[in-house]
């Protein structure tokens, strides 16, 4: 106690989370309520005073980075809607979680876009999927579904087509599992609903109008496009959704003045499959292979974030053993290998975008092929790894990477696993990175295309909730592996890559440095694997149950994935015994949120640069659209 009293009073911007919460509580006693639900953390803020409190949190308490903003529908669990915000300090440390509750009938919560532009897409998503209105939002329209879509699909009482049961596993599968095809059932059955005032004969898609309106074009697209309209200098150009440079089905709506872009509006959702709704029907275990399909370039990282979140929840229970050291070492190794895969891919395709068509990318993905061979031998699949489990892994490293000839395959390989890894990590991957640098870093064409193009300042990067190489390329040394460490990263020796310029070239340099740092981490992992040879990969010494029950509570597990901060927000509802299916399963997708500053970054550059700027963000549509 004496020590505490003697300690100099810490400035509130760097105080601990608990101190920050009590500061809030004392300054806004009537607006703040501690969240005392079982297994929950943070504070509940009165929506009327949310803006004031959020401003204090950002400016006085120093939580300048809004990582995640998402909604939860507590139908039957209190019957209210809730927005959950996770704010962090870019200097490091844990989250200040604050929430605002509203009723389900007419949900309204003031928009935080004035404080954090990074809330823009996330609030639009909450409006789209939950129907929460955000007064003050500059452009509140649907983002993943299309305008004119009826209903808000993430609400608990919304049912999809082919709806079968609320939760998996479905009863129809066993013991009386008579097979049927859902699609052969009547598609116009009871699952299809229309707005009451709709006239099917006069059905018109209003999504295009809404998109053009948001660009301030005063709508009437026809008028702009007709003869008279061309007298203005502005021209609307649609890039995508089917365009090779968009890395998938992504669309950018540009207004151009000559060749110069005056504004850009990203349009997405073409690959939307309501991953989160599927995730809430699934059991906890079911979700692991589904996370592979988010950022399908680095599925190991996706697995890692999700199992971390579930393990956080499980640690609330009585019987919980943390993962063994060998398990953690293997996880880190896999994640770093997939970071290498991701960055090789990102740099390669960025070069495609700026015109070096496929020569560099093919040199890089030769190494990727071998890493994927390794994933295939260890996890069973090259890209959809599905490798991590709660408290463990699918399997330990096999002794040999070995294929046997059989009916379908006639070519045999047989390598010692550790020898293969050692050669990859000590020779092949570093050699490829050297080649990559020789080919590109001083290449005059790359320099001219990328230096001072797509500039994003450090303040903007933080305010727009940019993450990963996009954030670090703007001079913000924020890497979750260091800022809010997880797994065995604290004991590993590596540096956070950071570049000050904030342009495309800086992002490229960050990725190259991260490639080298990943190799550095992998070199430290190898002796750790040798040392833990006899250790079990399972926390409990045996494989986990196939239907684990997860204690009541909430958790936000986040990892530094190749593309940026990947977070999973989970809520486990149900009785005190916990649940076998998540009540809320939210993915804070870096590819999605990193698109928020795209419009800002593109203003004033040429149309040909837009392709490169998008490539330098490094998105994957499986994760953007979810």
């Amino acid at each position, binding site marked *: 106690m004496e020590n505490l009293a003697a300690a100099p009073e810490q400035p509130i911007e760097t105080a601990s989370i608990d101190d920050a919460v009590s500061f809030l509580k004392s300054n806004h006693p009537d607006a703040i309520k501690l969240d005392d639900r079982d297994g929950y953390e943070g504070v509940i803020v009165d929506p009327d005073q949310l803006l004031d409190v959020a401003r204090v949190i950002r400016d006085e308490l120093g939580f300048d980075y809004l990582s995640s903003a998402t909604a939860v529908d507590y139908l039957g669990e209190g019957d209210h809607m809730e927005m959950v915000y996770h704010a962090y300090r870019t200097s490091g440390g844990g989250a200040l979680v604050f929430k605002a509750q509203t009723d389900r009938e007419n949900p309204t919560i003031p928009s935080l876009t004035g404080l954090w532009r990074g809330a823009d897409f996330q609030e639009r998503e909450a409006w789209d999927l939950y129907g929460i209105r955000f007064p003050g939002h500059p452009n509140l329209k649907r983002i993943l579904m299309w305008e004119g879509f009826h209903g808000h699909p993430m609400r608990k009482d919304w049912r999809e087509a082919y709806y079968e049961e609320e939760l*998996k*596993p479905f009863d*129809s*599968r*066993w*013991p*009386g*599992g*008579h*097979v049927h*095809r859902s699609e052969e059932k009547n598609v116009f059955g009871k699952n299809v609903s229309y707005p009451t005032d709709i006239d099917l004969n006069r059905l018109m898609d209003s999504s295009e109008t809404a998109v053009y309106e948001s660009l301030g074009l005063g709508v009437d697209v026809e008028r702009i496009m007709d003869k008279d309209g061309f007298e203005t200098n502005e021209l609307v150009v649609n890039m995508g959704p089917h365009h090779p440079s968009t890395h998938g089905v992504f669309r950018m709506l540009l207004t151009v003045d000559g060749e110069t872009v005056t504004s850009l509006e990203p349009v997405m959702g073409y690959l939307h499959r309501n991953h989160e709704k599927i995730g809430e029907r699934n059991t906890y*275990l*079911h*979700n*692991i*292979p*589904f996370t592979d399909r988010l950022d399908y370039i680095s599925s190991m990282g996706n697995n890692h974030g999700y199992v971390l979140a579930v393990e956080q929840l499980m640690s609330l229970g009585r019987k919980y053993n943390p993962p063994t050291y060998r398990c953690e070492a293997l996880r880190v190794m896999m994640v770093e290998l997939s970071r290498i895969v991701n960055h090789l891919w990102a740099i390669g395709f960025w070069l495609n975008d700026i015109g070096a068509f496929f020569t560099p990318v093919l*040199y890089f993905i*030769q190494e990727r*092929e071998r890493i994927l*061979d390794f994933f*295939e*031998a260890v996890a*069973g*699949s090259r890209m*959809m790894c*599905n490798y991590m489990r709660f408290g463990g892994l*699918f399997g330990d490293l*096999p002794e040999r*990477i*070995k*294929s*046997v*000839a*059989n*009916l*379908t*395959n*006639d*070519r*045999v*390989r047989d*390598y010692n696993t550790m020898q*293969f890894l050692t050669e*990859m990590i000590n*020779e*092949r991957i570093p050699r490829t990175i050297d*080649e990559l640098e*020789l*080919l*590109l*870093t*001083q*290449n*005059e064409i790359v*320099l001219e295309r990328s230096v001072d193009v797509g500039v994003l300042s450090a303040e903007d990067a933080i305010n727009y909730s940019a993450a990963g190489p996009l954030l670090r390329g703007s001079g913000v040394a924020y890497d979750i592996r260091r800022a809010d460490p997880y797994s065995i990263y604290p004991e590993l020796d590596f540096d956070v890559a950071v570049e000050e310029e904030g342009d495309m070239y800086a992002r490229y340099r960050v990725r190259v440095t991260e490639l080298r740092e990943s190799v550095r981490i992998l070199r430290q992992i190898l002796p750790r694997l040798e040392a833990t040879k006899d250790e079990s990969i399972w926390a409990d*010494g*045996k494989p986990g149950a*196939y*239907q684990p029950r997860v204690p009541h509570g909430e958790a936000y597990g986040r990892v530094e994935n190749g593309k940026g901060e990947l977070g999973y927000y989970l809520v486990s509802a149900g009785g005190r015994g916990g649940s076998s299916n998540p009540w809320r399963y939210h993915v804070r997708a870096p590819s999605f949120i990193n698109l928020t500053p795209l419009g800002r970054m593109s203003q004033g550059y040429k149309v040909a640069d837009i392709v490169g700027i998008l490539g330098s963000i490094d998105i994957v549509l499986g994760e953007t659209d979810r």
Partner: protein
Amino acid sequence: MYGTGLAKGLLLTLRHFVESYMDDLRYGFRKYHHSTDNFGIRQGTKTKGVITVQYPDEKVAVPERFRFVPFLIVEDEDHPTRAGKDWCTSCGICAKVCPPQCIWIVRGNDPVTGRPVPEPEAFFIDIDICMNCGYCAEYCPFDAIKMDHDYELASYDRTSHHIHDKERLSKPNSYWRSIAPTRAYDEMLVRGTWEHKDAAKEARRGASSARARSSQPAAQAPAATVTAAAPAAEATPESSAAAAPSSAAESPTPWSEDEAKREERRRKALERKARRAAKQG
């Protein structure tokens, strides 16, 4: 000097170009010959140059853990006591643990008593829905469902070909041992026998009762008499038929591995088993 970086990069491209022909010089046309050694080198960590695989003329052998649409294990046709019998007991765990819910099982019932019997009456997998995650194989307590290596499932009509029924799904036990000998061996260690859990139980029971009746030496484990000449093995290339475990008694390890390591694995597996038994009470 302006252009130096460009020139260096072009030299690298030239080196890659030359290296891609070095392989041709090294192997000549043997590169495309069906020699497994060449292929292992080309795909290995030492090689430089082209690593392309000329599918479908050549195919990369998939590793043992590779997973594609599942299949069901049935006992080999020449098994002395359980020929053609399913390993599946229709317990339904695979159907419950399946993330996209693509498995449908009709539990078997005894036609006379109406009580459930440990054998599925029908088993369907919709391979259009299957996401190849491998959970069914991972969590099956009887090692009865396994992930296949046969990835060439294209067909002209998805409505008639893509729901696999029990007949289409069933493959003999010897097939599994031929595509994944190491894993089959590890599973054997955990089970304690090459036989199905139930079969081993029956054999033990049968043996003890037989001893009690006539004290004649019981045919101990039928395991010892399993042979590898199963129907499915006919189509298998020579090499793999040789690699497949021929008989539990003669050679429990079908591949070369030194004795100490094998002992170590056995010890670990037994430890795991003991731990599990202790846990269950």
